[in-house]
């Protein structure tokens, strides 16, 4: 059952695609349709009126001339006939009458002296008594009452008939005081032909007007749509961040006004963005300068605190026990301040884009061991890594990443922290998993944010609040990534993915000869 249904869906889909391709709502199509409709209405009504007027004029003129002629012929010939003419006399008169300039056939009807109806006609083949419509005969033979307005007892009547697809004019009248009744038949074929050709001409003219209107509509649509298309392209470029996009303004029409408005908007936007980035740049530089400036006094303080520290550690007990906690506090806080400034410097280097990679060939297992050894974490970290996995990366930056990830795991998850290393295609994967409660779902997206604290009420932690953010930046500069997740069995898992060769990212910074 479903198969034929499926088959029928194919063409339907194609048709739908074609329809949507044509876009009946498109401005171009709408313009063409409207233009065509207007042109059609105008052409058809103009042609109709012209045809109708022409037809009336032509027919009336011909008719009037023919009927006038017929009347004259009747007066000059038929009224000259005796009251009861013979067949021959009628025939002769009819032929005489038909010889007039208008070329009509004549039929004369009278009563001969014996009281018989006699008929005389000019063309026996074409015009007989039967050709005259009964209604006309009746009207012609009807005696009109005489009055002041009507001076004749019989009137001239006419009618248009169609015999064998040829239009004819039939007219008839009766000579007053018992004269013969005369009918005439005039072919209107010539006039019909003329009117036909007029109709054809008008039809062709209408068709031409339609085509012309369609072309005009196309042209109009193009003149309107081209700027609209340009505007669309420009708006897209603007959206892509090319804020220096401007439109060429030509003319003074509404479209030009629209282009001008677009340009003004783009300019304002560019200016606003420039202002904002300048402000951002200024604040970044402030942080950078600030941390630079902090370094100088910090260097002096650090050097001196070390002297104090050595004094504390010396067994001579030269420091007053009352002062000792104060000295220890100064020493530890100075170290922390050092770390903070160091991290700030690192962050500003990333923000300013001046951070560079110094790559070297590194054995990952050795590097991790050295990292945890240097920080006395050997007892708290389980390392699952084979020796011999090497990568080309910046060892100092890898150390920063590892120290931050492992340090974070130890702080929040507690030992043991599991670090495992494996390779996947051209990538190196290092997983750091802890045994803690994991990361709450609402915190997960923010773990790499600077100075992000899981809750406002949480006490200030040991770290600078920049550690994970710096770790992430260091992964990014290698073309790598760090993701945070919760393991199914509990505990947070940070996965560091780095390309095994980061040197393509620093094209040409290290001279290497191939010898």
């Amino acid at each position, binding site marked *: 059952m479903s198969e034929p249904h499926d088959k029928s869906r194919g063409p339907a889909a194609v048709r739908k695609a074609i329809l949507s391709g044509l876009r009946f709502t498109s401005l171009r199509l709408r313009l063409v349709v409207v233009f065509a409709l207007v042109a059609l209405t105008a052409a058809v009504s103009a042609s109709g009126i012209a045809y109708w007027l022409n037809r009336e004029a032509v027919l009336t003129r011909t008719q009037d001339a023919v009927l006038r002629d017929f009347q004259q012929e009747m007066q000059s010939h038929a009224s000259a006939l005796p009251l009861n003419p013979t067949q021959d006399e009628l025939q002769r008169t009819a032929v005489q009458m038909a010889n007039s300039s208008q070329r009509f056939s004549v039929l004369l009807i009278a009563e001969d002296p014996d009281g018989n109806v006699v008929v005389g006609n000019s063309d026996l083949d074409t015009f007989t008594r039967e050709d005259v419509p009964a209604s006309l005969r009746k009207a012609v033979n009807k005696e009109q009452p005489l009055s002041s307005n009507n001076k004749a007892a019989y009137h001239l009547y006419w009618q248009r008939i169609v015999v064998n697809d040829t239009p004819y004019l039939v007219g008839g009248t009766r000579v007053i005081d018992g004269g013969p009744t005369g009918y005439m038949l005039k072919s209107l074929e010539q006039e019909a032909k003329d009117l036909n050709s007029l109709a054809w001409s008008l039809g062709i003219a209408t068709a031409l007007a339609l085509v012309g209107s369609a072309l005009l509509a196309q042209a109009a649509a193009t003149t309107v749509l081209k700027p609209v298309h340009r505007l669309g392209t420009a708006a897209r470029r603007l959206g892509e961040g090319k804020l220096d996009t401007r439109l060429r303004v030509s003319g003074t029409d509404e479209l030009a006004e629209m282009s001008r408005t677009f340009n003004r908007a783009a300019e304002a936007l560019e200016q606003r963005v420039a202002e904002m980035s300048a402000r951002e740049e200024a604040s970044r530089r402030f942080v950078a300068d600030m941390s*630079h400036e902090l*370094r*100088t*006094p*910090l*260097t*002096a*303080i*650090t*050097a*001196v605190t*070390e*002297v104090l520290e*050595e004094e504390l550690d010396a067994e001579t007990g030269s420091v007053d026990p009352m002062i000792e906690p104060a000295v220890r506090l100064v020493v530890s806080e100075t170290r922390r301040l*050092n770390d903070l*400034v160091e991290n700030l*410097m690192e962050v500003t*280097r990333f923000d300013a884009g*001046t951070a*560079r990679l*110094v790559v*070297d*060939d*590194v054995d990952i297992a*050795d*590097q991790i061991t*050295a*990292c945890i050894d*240097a920080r006395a974490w050997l007892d708290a970290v389980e390392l699952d890594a084979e020796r011999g996995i090497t990568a*080309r990366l910046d*060892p*100092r930056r890898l*150390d920063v990443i590892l120290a931050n990830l492992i340090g974070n795991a130890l702080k929040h998850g507690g030992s043991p922290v599991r670090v495992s290393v494996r390779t996947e295609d051209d990538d190196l994967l290092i997983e750091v998993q802890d045994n803690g409660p994991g990361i709450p779902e609402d915190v997960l997206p923010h773990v790499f944010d600077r100075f992000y604290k899981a809750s406002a009420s949480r006490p200030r932690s040991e770290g600078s609040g920049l550690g994970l953010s710096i770790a992430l930046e260091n992964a990014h500069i290698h073309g790598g990534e760090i993701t945070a997740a919760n393991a199914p069995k509990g505990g947070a898992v940070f996965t560091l993915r780095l390309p095994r060769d980061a040197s393509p990212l620093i094209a040409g910074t*290290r*001279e*290497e*000869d*191939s*010898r």
Partner: protein
Amino acid sequence: MTFVPSLLLIEDDDAIRTALELSLTRQGHRVATAATGEDGLKLLREQRPDLIVLDVMLPGIDGFEVCRRIRRTDQLPIILLTARSDDIDVVVGLESGADDYVVKPVQGRVLDARIRAVLRRGEREANDSATFGSLVIDRAAMTVTKNGEDLQLTPTELRLLLELSRRPGQALSRQQLLRLVWEHDYLGDSRLVDACVQRLRAKVEDVPSSPTLIRTVRGVGYRLDSPQ
């Protein structure tokens, strides 16, 4: 009587100069100080210290220039003190001939360790010699001659050459060389090795741009070979 190394500290900031002088003196060094590059160069001629600790940012001629001027005549060790760990500074410093660098805020202990490591590079340890083509390394006299001519090498350059010559034909990684020559931990800056190799090549190779003695082993490091 033990050897007390004499240092020259060139640093313009009073607080840092005083603090570092205090710290280094407590570590057992004799410290002379100068506040500008010009004063430092004058003191260098008068006192002939064993090592110079040089700040990069100095009024007047800067640390890099001081370093270059010293290198024109002297091969004594120089440790740069840079407030900016911006990479370009480090590279420029190493190119101008510094043996090592320390980033501010510097810990006195770290600086002391670096100073001692640099000074140890001049110590002799064996009594033999090795020949690589026209290059003769006399480990007893701690001299290097090329075509019979004495080469002026800094202690760091000499130590690098000695470490390489101890394992002829064997490639040493930058990290290994950093541990052997600079005594840095696992995070040593490999550019120190690269810069030193460049300077060494400029002195020992016939054509420094196409080295025949100190070869680069791609993906590993460097090795010293007799020319084929």
